[in-house]
């Protein structure tokens, strides 16, 4: 039996999640923020797969959650990029500091 357990994989997924959070908080470019969100979603997928394998191997719930999260992440990325391209057309910039029309 291998020495790698659930905790090791959870460590990787937690670290990846907070790397994504750091990127989301520090970068002001919309594409960079989108990439950080992709990292966060991937860490969550890794979490689901790890729990499915190590704790509930008799069910397949974690695996199906991962499949549906991948599908929803693809839809989310497509919509976000459509919005970013539209914003670039109207503002000539995709920096979030420049998109302040609704700011009070």
């Amino acid at each position, binding site marked *: 039996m291998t020495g790698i357990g659930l905790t090791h994989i959870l460590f*990787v997924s937690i670290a990846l999640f*907070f*790397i994504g959070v750091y*990127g989301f908080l520090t970068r002001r470019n919309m594409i960079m923020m989108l990439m950080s969100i*992709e*990292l966060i979603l991937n860490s969550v997928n890794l979490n689901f797969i790890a729990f499915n*394998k190590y*704790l509930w191997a008799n069910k397949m719930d974690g695996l*199906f959650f991962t499949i549906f999260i991948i599908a929803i992440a693809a839809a989310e990325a497509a919509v976000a990029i459509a919005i970013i391209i539209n914003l670039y057309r109207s503002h000539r910039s995709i920096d979030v500091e420049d998109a302040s029309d609704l700011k009070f």
Partner: protein
Amino acid sequence: MTAQDIIFYLLAAFTLVTGFLAVTTTKIFRSAIFLLFSLIGIAGIYFWLEYEFIAAVQIIVYVGGIVVLIIFSIFLTQEAGSNLPDTTMSKKITGGLAAVFGFGFTLLQVLQHKFIGTTEQGIEPNVANIGNRMLGVNEFGYSLPFEVVSILLLAAMVGCIVIALKKPVEK
């Protein structure tokens, strides 16, 4: 330490290092490429966990789909070689503190928690079992979420086209 352990540590280190470089590098195109390698590393971890179907889906959807989409949108919206404006020091400090403390507290909870797994016989996560479950309508079937996700994907595709469409010029 067996070879399996060493492979896991290598995959984990590769994923985390490229992920960290993806959020800290100043050139946006390099950042997209580092993100690509990080996603490949996660696919490698899925292979290591013997979830081959999920690993294949990860490579097809993320590496083949989303990263290509991101690279195309980088080409459409900025000069690919230019540097991004550097983030301010205060933002780096706040973001770094939030990430480090969140990481610490979550890791503390994980280390203190006792995970109790099932002792029943596991199901092999092969394609036949996944297909039977996904389109099944009995107790463990997932056909309703499958249909909901298909409607969501259709709505998202129509929404993307409508949002990104150029306004027709007035004649």
